[in-house]
């Protein structure tokens, strides 16, 4: 996040506090030609940015003179300003995430109901529909792609050393032990940005206690002081000696890099992360296995696979015009087709399409394996920071997990801290 965008955020924030009347007064009236759709994009990285441009160009080419005007904002800035963005003058269509993080805004009345669109959507699984649905049972999101999390490693390293992908936690620890003997950092580990280690927490929790427990924990219904949560941290503490030290000072790019340089043996990451750090010639060397089983009762049922998609902003002035609304919904309908996803994935092969109508014949072996992983999942989770309230994940969980990493022994103090704060955050409404 740049200083300027931050200042802009601060200024808008101050404005929202002091001058709400002034702000609403300068909104533009309903207008537009009904054919131009503005789209707020958080895809600021070059690869996805170009891939989206391709997809929108293809839409424009086949539509009847409709235009998509894209406003791209730096990824983190977009995220951090989403609240004010949606309340101020949002674009007609915007990119956002599935799950609780979408439901939160749906509940606040900032999203357009697109249930009628969903009646025509084909090729989406029930799990996808569930993740696109608000607490009121209506749909708000058009999913586009997702990227599963797993334990990534290098094929060649595993072949050279004769390592076998582990299936259970004990095998995982044994493999890590072997890697340690072979002078490798068994698990590349990072949490400088505050979120990467959440994936590990989610997996240990879902493998130990199951998806349903994880869901209610994230919804604030179960106490963090519960024995089952302590068990998660205890298991994690058992793995920490095999993780790269100094995780709180390492970005995910650096972690993926050490995987690429064969300094580390494995890493719990999402599909795009190693992909972004491996040079073109070594992309074929990336492989993964699902996070190992901990409790046989839950096996490897759940897969963490965040879904990104498109939504309509309720406050967009344009959408009060029926014609514009129709255009915007038309765009979503087109984006929901397998073909639209194919165009995107052609230039950004680090994700996989949500639609089962997408053409997977051009997928890399890694992508095919990812499709298999997701389609075999009994439940799909959305990552800790998308499965719970944003104020809880960012102000409570990020510091808590970082504290656990640097001081893993005081689990009691940690969970008490989390629980006390959780109560105040969830009581805020």
């Amino acid at each position, binding site marked *: *996040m*740049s*200083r300027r965008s*931050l200042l802009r*955020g*601060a200024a808008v*924030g*101050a404005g*929202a*506090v*002091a*001058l709400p009347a002034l702000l609403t007064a300068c909104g533009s009236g309903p207008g537009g030609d009904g054919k131009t759709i503005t789209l707020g994009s958080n895809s600021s990285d070059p690869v996805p940015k170009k891939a989206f441009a391709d997809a929108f160009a293809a839409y424009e080419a086949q539509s009847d003179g409709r235009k998509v005007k894209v406003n791209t904002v730096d990824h983190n800035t977009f*995220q*951090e*300003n*989403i*609240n*004010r963005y949606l*309340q101020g003058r949002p674009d007609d269509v915007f990119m956002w995430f599935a799950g609780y993080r979408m439901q939160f805004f749906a509940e*606040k009345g*900032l999203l357009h109901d697109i249930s009628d669109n969903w009646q025509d959507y084909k090729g989406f699984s029930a799990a996808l529909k569930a993740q696109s649905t608000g607490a009121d049972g209506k749909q708000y999101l058009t999913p586009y792609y997702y990227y599963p999390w797993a334990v990534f490693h290098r094929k060649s390293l595993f072949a050279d050393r004769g390592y076998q992908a582990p299936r259970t936690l004990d095998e995982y620890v044994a493999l890590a032990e072997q890697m340690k003997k072979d002078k490798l950092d068994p698990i590349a580990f990072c949490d*400088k*940005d*505050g979120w990467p280690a959440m994936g590990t927490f989610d997996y240990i929790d879902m493998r130990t206690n199951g998806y349903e427990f994880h869901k209610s924990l994230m919804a604030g219904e179960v106490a963090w002081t519960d024995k089952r949560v302590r068990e998660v941290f205890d298991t994690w503490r058992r793995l920490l000696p095999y993780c790269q*030290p*100094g*995780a*709180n*000072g*390492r970005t995910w790019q*650096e972690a993926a*890099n*050490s995987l690429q340089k064969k300094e580390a043996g494995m890493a719990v990451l999402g599909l795009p992360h190693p992909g972004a750090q491996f040079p073109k010639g070594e992309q074929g060397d990336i492989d993964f296995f699902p996070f190992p089983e901990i409790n046989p009762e839950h096996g490897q049922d759940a897969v963490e696979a965040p879904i990104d998609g498109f939504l309509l902003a309720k406050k967009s002035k344009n959408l009060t015009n029926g014609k514009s609304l129709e255009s915007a919904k038309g765009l979503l309908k087109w984006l929901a087709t397998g073909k639209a996803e194919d165009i995107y994935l052609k230039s950004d092969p680090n994700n996989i399409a949500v639609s089962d109508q997408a053409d997977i014949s051009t997928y890399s072996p890694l992508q095919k394996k990812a499709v298999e992983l997701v389609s075999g999942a009994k439940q799909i989770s959305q990552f800790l920071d998308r499965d719970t309230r*944003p*104020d809880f994940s*960012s*102000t409570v969980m*990020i*510091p808590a997990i*970082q*504290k656990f990493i*640097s001081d893993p022994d005081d689990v009691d103090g940690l969970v008490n*801290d989390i629980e*006390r*704060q959780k109560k*105040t*955050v969830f009581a*805020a*409404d």
Partner: protein
Amino acid sequence: MSFIPARRTGRRVSRRFTGRDLAVLAVLLGIPVLLDIAVVWGPTLASVALSFTGWDGIGDIKWVGTQNYENLFNNYPQFWPAARHNLLWLAFLGLVATPFGLLLAVLIDRGVRFSRFYQSTLYMPVVLSLAVVGFIAQLVFSRDQGALNAVIGDTGSPTDWLGDPDLNIWMVMLAAAWRHTGYVMILYLAGLKAVDPSLKEAAAIDGAGETQTFFRIVLPTLRPVNVIVGVITVIESLRAFDIVYAVNHGRNGLELLSVLVTDNIIGEASRIGFGSAIAVVLLVVSLGFVVTYLVQELRGEKNR
């Protein structure tokens, strides 16, 4: 002859404010006052008011009394470290970086060789924003790929300069001081140029040594600069933000009050009431320091 101008003067006095004068006054004074109220006092008072409410930035504003403050003091593990770090920052800049800047200014003012070179080199970081300084600090201090560990050959189990919560605050303060020192130096250099050389000569004739001359003669004449530097130091350290935000979003050992405000208000979290409470604490602390300092200095000025 003399009568007419006098009468004119009298008339001028009685008609001191013509309509046009009033209009000009209203515009020149009124607009700044209005702006001041709108962009300074308005938000400040709004923050104080909001700190007693619960608000997520979207729904209704709900009065919650002092609950935010209770939460802040009792249930927010980051708060006390942040307050401590702010004070540590103040102490470090005030007791290390500022005196060091003064020392450099004195050395350069005395005309060491290559003084112009030193002057521009030391001043260079001042043109960088603290966010940029933060990025530079990461290039230097990063554990795996940083320059520092490479230079000192710390590769076996490298020191995690920015990830270790016991260390990183010092590293970041060092980076901040790198910039602050140059800033202070330039202010003092300007001040030293204005010191009348005859004062120093007089002191020398009276038999004062270098040190004595400096502390008894030069430093007191620098009083106005001292006030400015003092206020700048206090403000810079209490509003410190960019650099830690650039390094790791002000978490894991780098907590500062300003970051907690941002985390709670600007971020997706939008705990505006709670964040406002932190902002009020920061405001009180800053006002406390600045006002105390200014009162001290101004009183000293009068007594002199």
